[in-house]
């Protein structure tokens, strides 16, 4: 009988380990002056250095060092006064020099931590994820395997190599082993990567786009029998490419390992790949022996020795931590926990904040983004931010506040903007979506409605206020929905002697 997740966590204690690779958004590569822009024609952003041509030499990008220090400080690390680069030697066609320049035993940042909050059965709980190191390295090129069924190198007819990515600065952020997360391990993993991503974004050091590969996560997990205190053998799931997948990969891997252990099978220390469709992992290419990278100090580079004064300067420029920033916004906007969480989960907090910063009411901004815009985005299977800008939403909210649009009209405007009919103002103009605010025009519609339904009007006159609904509906219909229903009601009731 196969164990389910709940059975697994009842019998086994997971230990997590997370390695996150982040591409920095420096203008130039780690060791040369080539552009790092994403999406250029293959091999157009290369030079002798990043192609590893004979005789070329690397020179460290200062901005990348600064970014590494920012990241280290934001993750509560100590910044090494002296760190070095090493060579990691292995042969692969997308590695121009057949070694990668990377930090090895002397990384730039060590011993930090990141606290994440998880909604547990006992309320919100803080888990501390300790960080072992943050180190700098260069990215590899990309291989495109043509022909063959799998898109992998084996069975391919031929392969194409693009070295535009080769040499882009990468930061590797490695946690220490994270024990004690129990059944929340998958959520802790996700929350950690999410928080890390938000920090990196707030620092402005990376685009942190998982789908473009600028943030990649390798998730490790092992299980040990509850209370045994013995560490189990871990597996490493490579290149998990969304936050949701991080959570699912750990979850799936815990079930797989739990069942193997239950059947008395051994866990093999191996690299695995995450399968989006099933939420399971499959083994990567198995290696007979451990890879020997023959690390040694990179003789072409001098040690990185940042000045203590410079580090303090950088510390002063660090932005507010995303967690603190969130708390501050929640207080300022008086948002309940649940709705705050919804905004964060939908990844719309920054967008809502930007909308509020343009003058919109926080509650309105939140409800438009999470409501109508998200609904349309869902239909089209895109992100809400791809449909509208904070400025457009703020403009619409302002028009409602000024009484120039009703909520209903505003939804038409949103639809128009989303369909590419132009700015809110242009959509209003083209579709003629103005509120009928002219009282005399409304009065004639009201009179016409009363004339058409004299019995209903009489009931209202005699005090049956709810009956007014039918008349209001008729007026709204007659004005094509462009009237302000509240104003219609007010005028109607006054007219029928029920005002005040």
């Amino acid at each position, binding site marked *: 009988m196969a164990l389910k997740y709940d059975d697994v966590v009842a019998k086994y204690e997971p230990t997590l380990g997370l390695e996150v690779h982040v591409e920095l958004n420096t203008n130039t590569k780690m060791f040369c002056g080539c552009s790092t822009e994403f999406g250029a024609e293959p091999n157009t952003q290369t030079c*002798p250095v990043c*192609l*590893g*041509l*004979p*005789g*070329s*030499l*690397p*020179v*460290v990008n200062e901005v990348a060092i600064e970014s590494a220090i920012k990241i280290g400080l934001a993750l509560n690390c100590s910044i090494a006064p002296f760190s070095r680069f090493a*060579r990691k*030697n292995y*042969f692969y*066609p997308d590695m*121009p*020099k*057949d*070694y990668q320049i990377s930090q090895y035993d002397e990384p730039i940042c060590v011993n930090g931590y990141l606290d994440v909050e998880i909604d547990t059965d006992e309320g919100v709980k803080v888990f501390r994820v300790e960080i072992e190191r943050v180190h700098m390295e260069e990215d590899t090129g990309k291989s495109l395997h043509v022909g063959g069924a799998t898109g992998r*190198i084996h069975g391919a007819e031929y*392969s194409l*190599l693009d070295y535009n990515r080769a040499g882009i600065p990468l930061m590797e952020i490695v946690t220490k082993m994270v024990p004690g997360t129990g059944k929340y391990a998958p959520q802790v993993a996700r929350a950690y990567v999410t928080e890390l991503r938000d920090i990196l974004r707030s620092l402005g050091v990376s685009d942190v786009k998982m789908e473009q590969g600028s943030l990649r996560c390798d998730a490790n997990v092992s299980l040990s029998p509850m209370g045994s205190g013995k560490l189990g053998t871990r597996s490493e799931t490579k290149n998990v490419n969304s936050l949701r997948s991080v959570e699912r990969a750990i979850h799936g891997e815990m079930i797989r390992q739990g069942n193997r252990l239950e059947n008395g099978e051994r866990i093999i220390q191996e690299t695995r790949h995450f399968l989006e469709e099933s939420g399971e992992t499959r083994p990567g290419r198995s290696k007979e022996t451990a890879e*020997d990278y*023959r*690390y*040694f100090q990179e*003789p*072409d*580079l*001098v040690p990185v020795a940042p000045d203590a004064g410079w580090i303090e300067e950088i510390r002063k420029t660090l932005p507010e931590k995303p967690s603190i920033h969130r708390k501050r916004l929640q207080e300022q906007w008086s948002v309940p926990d649940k709705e705050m969480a919804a905004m964060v989960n939908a990844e719309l907090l920054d967008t809502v904040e930007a909308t509020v910063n343009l003058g919109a009411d926080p509650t309105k901004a939140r409800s438009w983004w999470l409501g109508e815009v998200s609904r349309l985005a869902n239909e089209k299977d895109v992100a809400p931010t791809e449909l509208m800008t904070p400025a457009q939403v703020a403009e619409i909210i302002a028009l409602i506040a000024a009484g120039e649009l009703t909520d209903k009209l505003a939804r038409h405007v949103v639809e128009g903007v989303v369909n590419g009919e132009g700015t809110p103002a242009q959509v209003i103009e083209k579709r003629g979506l103005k509120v009928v605010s002219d009282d005399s025009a409304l009065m004639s519609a009201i009179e016409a409605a009363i004339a058409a339904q004299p019995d209903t009007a009489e009931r209202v006159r005699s005090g049956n206020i709810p009956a007014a609904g039918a008349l209001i509906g008729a007026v709204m219909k007659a004005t094509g929905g462009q009237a302000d229903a509240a104003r219609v009601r007010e005028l109607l009731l006054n007219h029928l002697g029920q005002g005040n």
Partner: protein
Amino acid sequence: MTNIFKSAQEMSSALVAKEVSAVDLANEHFDRIEKVDGDVHAFLHLDKEGALAQARDVDAKRAAGEKLSPLAGVPLALKDVLTQKGIPTTCGSKMLENWRPPYDSTVVTRLKAAGVVILGKTNMDEFAMGSSTENSAYGPTHNPWDLSRIPGGSGGGSSAALAAFEAPLAIGTDTGGSIRQPAAVTGTVGVKPTYGAVSRYGLVAFSSSLDQAGPCARTVLDTALLHEVIAGHDPKDSSSINAPVPSVVAAAKKLDVKGMKIGVIKELGGDGFQKGVSERFNEALEELVKAGAEIVEVSCPNFEYALAAYYLIAPSEASSNLARFDSMRYGLRVGDDGSHGAEEVMSLTRQAGFGKEVKRRIILGTYALSSGYYDAYYGSAQKVRTLIMRDYEAAFAKADVLVSPTAPTTAFKIGEKADDPVAMYLNDIATIPVNMAGIGGMSLPCGLASEDNLPVGFQIMTPAMKDDLMYQVGGTLEAALNSKWGSPLMSQAPALGAK
């Protein structure tokens, strides 16, 4: 055909006086190369078109009255390990037979800017690994003093070109003695500057922490003139020294060593050194004493381990530096017939493209860096390196410069040591410690050994960034010896080429 036997400095004067044009001077050298290089085989590639274009440009500028660098219009031979845009750069290997680099090394950029006329690329041991130039994939170079003998290595092409009067200036590179040992066995002058004095950008790496390009010529002053052209800080090389270049030309002209303390390294002499080598070396010391210097003996006990440590560090770095020759982006490709995968093509290419000595060192280095062996080999070798630096520090506390014979023997016969790598490695016993410590070293001729009438080299070592001192001592010694002999040693070299 009278200009080719001049020094570079004399050629420069003739150019300035418009007694000869740069174009004519280049053509005289190409004629000489045509006449003798069939026997010597110093060059792998000649760039007549580029050289003459540069010479014409210099002549035009001179005619227009532009201020030119002292070496403008003077020809030079470039070791085939430095990139020159569009010109084959083979490193003496089949691996790069048809590779034309798309960029200039910094050394070449500076030579071009100074108006130096680059005649072509010179032969070398494959990827600079060797002491005889026999490891070139394109056949050996012959010593102009005796064509049956080696011209030293790895830069035997450059030293032979100088000794054969095919060029008055040459560029070499020195990882364990590849400038100085060839200079010693060909009766020429070669300098390995302080590590970081000359940019390594565009120098195809053998052992990055030891490699250093340097100037070669037939006189100390010519070497100094070239030194000032190629040295200086380069932002493209992180290991490049960011400090002013010492005034080596002025130092070469000083001709004064009064009161200087000259330390003779006890461990670099005696047993294992050819008798004739020791004799000439001691006579040179006497000349320095006559010139007013004081000789002191110093001991460097850790030099004993230098060779062993070198043959761990250099191959280790080489195993990584040479990994890039995998056929994927440039150079040789073998087995690309659709029946082999990428990994097999890499393997077949490296099997076919590298020579025996290169493979030996790659295997040695790969082994030394392997996990489980790193500490015992690479780690220990790095410790020896530190000890060698300390030995030098202690010795330089007692002496301004240190001296030794450059090589233990004169030029040996081609083929004589080809099957005995250790005997071959011993050629560099006196030059390797300099690279290990990153200091400067010069070799200049101090006469012919009595047994074989072949040139003997005198090595001068100076503390890091004090390269001017070796030019000062070398210039003084050269002048004293020339006046003793009545003419430079090169005037005794046999005539070359069929009449």
